[in-house]
């Protein structure tokens, strides 16, 4: 018999519902992630919680059979699942909702998601999917890494758009495993790859051919970058790994945006001074309408200013803080307390050994589909010199912004279809042409208006001239560029030196000649 309870949302009721035979409500009230959960749900205006007890959770069941079943102490194999609603509910009103023949559609509007409660002594928060912060009408907060989860609650069909989160149990999973687990939930949805449980991820990571783990894999104390990459490969994906310790010239915020915009889950690896390295799966970002920072890397004006300059914070699943935890971007001071060249740092609710709240990025790993071969940093080699050229001709270079991101061809076509700045021949030429499945699109905007779109075949390789076509929506710029790139112009020698290859100059001329039918260049690209 199911012991369902419907409770008003309060700290006392939440802690009581999270409690189990191994952890009292009083202990849970002092547990960091439980406190975060309370504050998060309070912000989301939760008014009621429904306790589904017992609940069988596939992820915990796998962990249970892999470890807990063989412990001398007894741990239950069943969990509880708590559901949160933005409306007041009682046993009676909820009972009516469940037994009604026609489901009340407004219930979906008030559903905030669920938390699986594990029957463990400390790490009680199992798989949970909660609604992300409201998006301010699409203007500021964006959560492209979210996916849809369908939930059946006593016959009620509900769904939640979010990304699965859980806290590390420190036995089968430390932060790196949990970060991968969340990321695989999204890649499974995007690419149809598996969504392995934490136990399987840890096993795959620590059995890498070259892995010489310094401790036993279980109980789990952590993974190395190499082991995280091995787990990604084991899951049929490729790891895009970026080392932020080597050079300050990585525009890291725009890089993260470039992958996340398509929905890819970027895993941020940070150093917490005096504590060590930590992994966080990013779920979203806050994009302001005006600039938040002045330069991608302070003191280096050669890097093209990108969308990342308008991002003031990321949201991430931090297995020791909570879901969608805020990471506020700050320029990083010099000297830094840790070994990294990264130009930014994040302020979070973490506290380091000195009482500071700063996290210093040291690496990024993105699990990507193996056909995506071109990287964000490789695209920079094409747009950085072109930016220098545009900066020399546009009246106020400070108004230039580059939007560089991965995009699925189907999404690109959808956007082209609705682009009011493109003529019908440009649109038709692109829509009727065969596209690669993934593009890197680099759009140069001036005062918010797209002046040109560069399309790079993301399935190509950097040395094979992946720039496939350029769309020139602003005729005034196109005509000016044609004159600028003409051999009769004495400045063309300097342009050639900046763009490095004659082929790039020649290609830009061709894109300008084909500007009413840019799709024709795609045809030519396919013919090679």
């Amino acid at each position, binding site marked *: 018999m199911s012991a369902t309870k419907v409770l008003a949302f309060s700290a006392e009721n939440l802690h009581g519902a999270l409690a189990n035979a191994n952890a009292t409500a009083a202990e849970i009230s002092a547990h960091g992630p439980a406190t975060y959960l309370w504050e998060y749900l309070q912000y989301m205006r939760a008014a009621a919680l429904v306790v589904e007890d017992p609940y069988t959770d596939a992820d915990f069941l796998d962990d249970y059979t892999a470890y807990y079943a063989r412990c001398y102490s007894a741990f239950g194999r069943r969990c509880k699942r708590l559901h949160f609603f933005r409306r007041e509910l009682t046993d009676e009103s909820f009972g009516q909702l469940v037994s009604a023949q026609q489901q009340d559609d407004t219930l979906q509007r008030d559903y905030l998601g669920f938390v699986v409660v594990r029957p463990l002594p400390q790490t009680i928060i199992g798989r949970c999917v909660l609604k992300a912060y409201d998006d301010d009408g699409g203007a500021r907060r964006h959560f492209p890494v979210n996916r849809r989860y369908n939930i059946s609650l006593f016959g009620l069909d509900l769904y939640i758009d979010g990304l699965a989160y859980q806290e590390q149990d420190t036995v089968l999973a430390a932060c790196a495993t949990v970060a991968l687990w969340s990321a695989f939930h999204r890649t499974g949805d995007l690419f149809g790859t598996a969504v392995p449980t934490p136990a399987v991820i840890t096993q795959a990571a620590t059995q890498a051919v070259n892995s010489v783990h310094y401790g036993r894999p279980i109980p789990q104390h952590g993974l190395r970058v190499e082991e995280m990459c091995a787990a990604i490969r084991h899951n049929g994906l490729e790891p895009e790994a970026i080392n932020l310790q080597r050079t300050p010239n990585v525009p890291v915020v725009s890089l993260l945006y470039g992958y996340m915009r398509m929905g890819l889950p970027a895993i941020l690896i940070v150093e917490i001074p005096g504590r060590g390295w930590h992994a966080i799966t990013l779920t979203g970002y806050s994009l302001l309408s*005006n600039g938040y920072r002045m330069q991608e890397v302070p003191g*280096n004006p050669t890097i093209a200013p990108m969308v990342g300059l308008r991002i003031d914070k990321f949201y991430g699943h931090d297995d020791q803080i909570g879901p969608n935890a805020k990471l506020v971007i700050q320029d990083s001071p010099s000297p830094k307390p840790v070994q990294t060249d990264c130009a930014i740092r994040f302020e979070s609710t973490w506290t380091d050994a000195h009482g500071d709240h700063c996290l210093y990025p040291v690496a990024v790993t993105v699990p990507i589909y193996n056909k995506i071969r071109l990287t964000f940093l490789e695209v920079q080699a094409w747009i950085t010199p072109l930016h220098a050229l545009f900066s020399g001709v546009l*009246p106020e270079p400070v108004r230039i912004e580059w939007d560089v991101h991965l995009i699925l061809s189907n999404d690109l076509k959808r956007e082209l279809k609705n682009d009011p700045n493109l003529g019908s021949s440009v649109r038709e030429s692109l829509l009727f042409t065969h596209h690669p499945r993934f593009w890197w699109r680099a759009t140069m905007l001036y005062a918010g208006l797209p002046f040109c779109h560069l399309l790079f075949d993301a399935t190509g390789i950097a040395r094979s001239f992946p720039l496939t076509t350029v769309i020139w929506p602003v005729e005034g710029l196109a005509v000016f560029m044609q004159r600028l790139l003409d051999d009769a112009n004495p400045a063309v020698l300097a342009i050639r030196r900046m763009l490095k290859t004659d082929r790039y100059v020649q290609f830009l001329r061709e894109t300008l000649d084909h500007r009413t039918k840019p799709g024709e260049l795609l045809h030519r690209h396919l013919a090679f």
Partner: protein
Amino acid sequence: MAETRNNMEQILTLEEANGLHLRELDAKALEDEVGRVWETIESMREAQVFTEEMLAREISV
């Protein structure tokens, strides 16, 4: 952090963009930038390389 760039405050229309007065390119200034631009690009490539020491660090907090 103070807002320093003005990107989207006043979005140009296509008509305004076509009427924009573009500057003649200062070839000398562009030429002077070549070294710095390609130095930046080269240094970005270093970010795709991981050292043994880095690979050996455990992500364990």
